[in-house]
C-alpha cells in the first residue's frame, strides 16, 4: 500500500507544479533533448558497450575455445581471435563418453514432461481462470507457494520415495519428479494467458450455438496457442537444464545431458577445449530456443519462480 500511496502523493503534487509553469514547460524540453544526443549519449553508449563486452565475454570465450586447436587453448598467451579453426575438440568430447545416449534421454524426459505438463496444466489453469468455485483462492495461493519450495531441500525425501516405489534410475521416475516443478509454473503462466483472452468471445460463440467445450476449442484454444508454445518451450528448457535430480535419481549408465557435462567437468576438468566444445553443443540449441520465447516469458516468470 505504501508504494501506491507514495506515487499517489507525488501525483497530487505533480499537476500543481506544471500549472503555473505550463507556458514555459514545453520550452526547456526540446533544448535538453537537442543537447543530449551529441555528447552525453556517446558516454552512455560506451558504458553500454562495456556492459556488452563484460557480460558477453564468457559466451564468446566458450565458442572461441571450442573451435580452436586444443594446444592454442593452453597457450600462455591467449588468442582472443581464432587463428585456426578446428572441429577436433568436438570429436574428442564425443569420444570421451557416450554423448548421444544422454542427449536422447534428456530429449525423451523433457518432451514427455512438457506434453504431460501442458495437458495437465491447461486443465488446471482453465479451472482457476474460468470457473468460480469454493477454495479457488486457496488453490491459487497454494500453487504460488509450491513454487517457492526450494527443490534442493526436497532431494532426500524424493530420493527415498522413488527408491520405495522402485522408480530409482528409471526415466519415468525422473519425469514425474520434473512435473512437480514444471506444473506450478505452467499452470500459473497459462492462467495469465487465458485471463487475457476476453470472455465475451467465448460467450458470443455460445450464443451462436457452440457448447462450452466447443467454444473453448474453436475460440480460446487458437488464441491460446502462441502462449502454450512459449510455455512449452520454456518448460522444455527447464527440464533439459535440470542437474541435481538427474544426478541423484539416475545411475551413471542412464545419465542425462547435463549430468554428462557435469561428469566431464569433474572428471576431465583439465581438458578445457573439449569441455568447451561439449558446453557449446549443450548450450547453443537451448540459447536459440530461449531467444525465441524470452519476450513472451519474461513477464510470466516474475510470477513463475522457476529458474535454478
Amino acid at each position, binding site marked *: 500500500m505504501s508504494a501506491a500511496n507514495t506515487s499517489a502523493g507525488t501525483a497530487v503534487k505533480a499537476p500543481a507544479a506544471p500549472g503555473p509553469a505550463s507556458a514555459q514547460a514545453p520550452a526547456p524540453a526540446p533544448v535538453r533533448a537537442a543537447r543530449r544526443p551529441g555528447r552525453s549519449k556517446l558516454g552512455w553508449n560506451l558504458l553500454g558497450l562495456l556492459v556488452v563486452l563484460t557480460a558477453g565475454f564468457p*559466451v564468446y570465450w566458450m565458442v572461441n575455445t571450442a573451435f580452436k586447436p586444443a594446444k592454442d587453448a593452453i597457450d600462455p598467451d591467449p588468442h582472443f581471435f581464432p587463428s585456426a579453426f578446428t572441429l577436433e575438440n568436438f570429436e574428442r568430447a564425443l569420444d570421451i563418453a557416450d554423448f548421444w545416449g544422454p542427449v536422447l534421454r534428456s530429449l525423451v524426459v523433457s518432451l514427455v514432461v512438457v506434453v504431460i505438463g501442458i495437458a495437465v496444466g491447461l486443465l488446471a489453469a482453465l479451472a482457476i481462470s474460468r470457473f468460480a468455485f469454493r477454495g479457488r483462492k486457496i488453490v491459487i495461493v497454494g500453487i504460488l507457494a509450491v513454487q517457492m519450495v526450494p527443490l534442493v531441500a526436497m532431494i532426500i525425501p524424493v530420493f527415498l520415495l522413488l527408491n520405495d516405489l522402485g522408480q530409482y534410475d528409471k526415466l519415468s521416475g525422473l519425469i514425474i519428479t520434473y512435473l*512437480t516443478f514444471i506444473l506450478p509454473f505452467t499452470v500459473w503462466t497459462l492462467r495469465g494467458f487465458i485471463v487475457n483472452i476476453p470472455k465475451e468471445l467465448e460467450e458470443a460463440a455460445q450464443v451462436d450455438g457452440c457448447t462450452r467445450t466447443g467454444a473453448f476449442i474453436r475460440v480460446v484454444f487458437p488464441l491460446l496457442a502462441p502462449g502454450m508454445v512459449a510455455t512449452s518451450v520454456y518448460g522444455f528448457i527447464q527440464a533439459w537444464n535440470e542437474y541435481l535430480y538427474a544426478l541423484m535419481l539416475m545411475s551413471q549408465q542412464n545419465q542425462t545431458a547435463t549430468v554428462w557435462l557435469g561428469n566431464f567437468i569433474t572428471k576431465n576438468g583439465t581438458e578445457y577445449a573439449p569441455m568447451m566444445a561439449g558446453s557449446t553443443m549443450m548450450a547453443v540449441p537451448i540459447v536459440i530456443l530461449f531467444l525465441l520465447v524470452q519476450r513472451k516469458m519474461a513477464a510470466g516468470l516474475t510470477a513463475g519462480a522457476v529458474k535454478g
Partner: protein
Amino acid sequence: MSAADTTTAKVPPARQSPPPGPAAGTPGKPGKKSNGGAGIPWLLLAPCLTVLLLVLGYPLVRLVTLSFQKFGQPQLWGFQEAESAGLDNFTKILGDAEFWAVVLRTVLFAAGAVVVTMVLGMLIALLLQRVSGWVKALINIVLVASWGMPIIVATAIFKWLFDADYGVLNWLLSKLPGVDMIGHNWFASGPQGLAVIMLLVVWGAVPFVVITLSAGLTQVPKELEEAARLDGAGAWGVFRFVTLPVLKPIIVMLTTLSVIWDMGVFPQVYVMRNGHPEPEFQLLTTYSFDRAFVVNDYGTGSAIALVTVVLLLGVVAVYMRQMLKIGDVE
C-alpha cells in the same frame, strides 16, 4: 503483449482501479460462471493436484518426519525400521559450530549475490534507457544469451575463465601494472572461491532482473519525472523519489525471488569443486546433501534442509503478500 500486460499489473495502480491485465476479465467472473457446477473445476484440477500432492506434498511431510528420525544406510536398504530420534538431529546440528559457520556463510553468500544482482540490474536497466537503439539491441542479445545458458555450461565456462594456469582472467589481470596473477588459484581459499561462484550466480541472474526492471521503467510516468525536475530534483532525486517508489513492488518481488534462488545455489558449488566441496565451500544446500548422501545420515541431512526451508519462510511470506497486494492473485 504479455510482457506489457503483466508488468502493468505489477506497477501499483494509481488508485483502487484494478490492474488492467489479468483483472480485465475477472471482476464479473465469480458470480457469472457459477452455473458451471461445482464439480467441474475440481475435476479439471484433479490431475494437477494429484501429481503435486504425491511428489511434492508427500516428500514435504517425509522431510519433516525424517528430520526427527535416525535414518541411515540400514534403514535405506530396509534392514532396519526407521526409529524416532526425537530432537536428536536438531540438537546435533544446532550444537555444531560447523553448522553455524555454514549458515553464516550461506546467508552472507546469498545476501551478497542478491545485493550485487539487484544493484547491477538496476544500473543496467537505467543505462538501457539512455543508450542508442543499436547498443540497446546488443545489450539485450547478450543478456538473453547469458540468461538462457544452462547452469552447468555457465559453471564450466567460469571454471575455464578462472583456471589457475591457462585462465584468461589471470592473464588479463597480469597485464595490469604491478600485478602478477599467473598461476593464482582462485579456489585455494573459501572466500575467494565463493566470490567467483557468486560472480557466476550474479552473471546468470542479472539478465532477468534487467529485463523485468526495464519493463517496469517504461511504466514510470514521464510527467512525474518532469515535474520532479521542475521542482528542482537532480537525477538522484528523481530516481529516489519518483522512479524507486513506482518500481517498489517489482523490486520487492525480484528481491524475494533472488533470495530464494540464491539460497538454493547447488550445482554451481558442487560442479565447480568437482563434486566434493571442501569444508570452507559448504553452503546449506551442499552441506545437507553431503550429510545425507556422502555420510549416509539422511535424518541429519533432512534436518538441515528443513532449517533452510524455515529460514526461507519469512522471505516467501513477503513475496506472497506482495502478490496478493498487487492483486495478481485476486
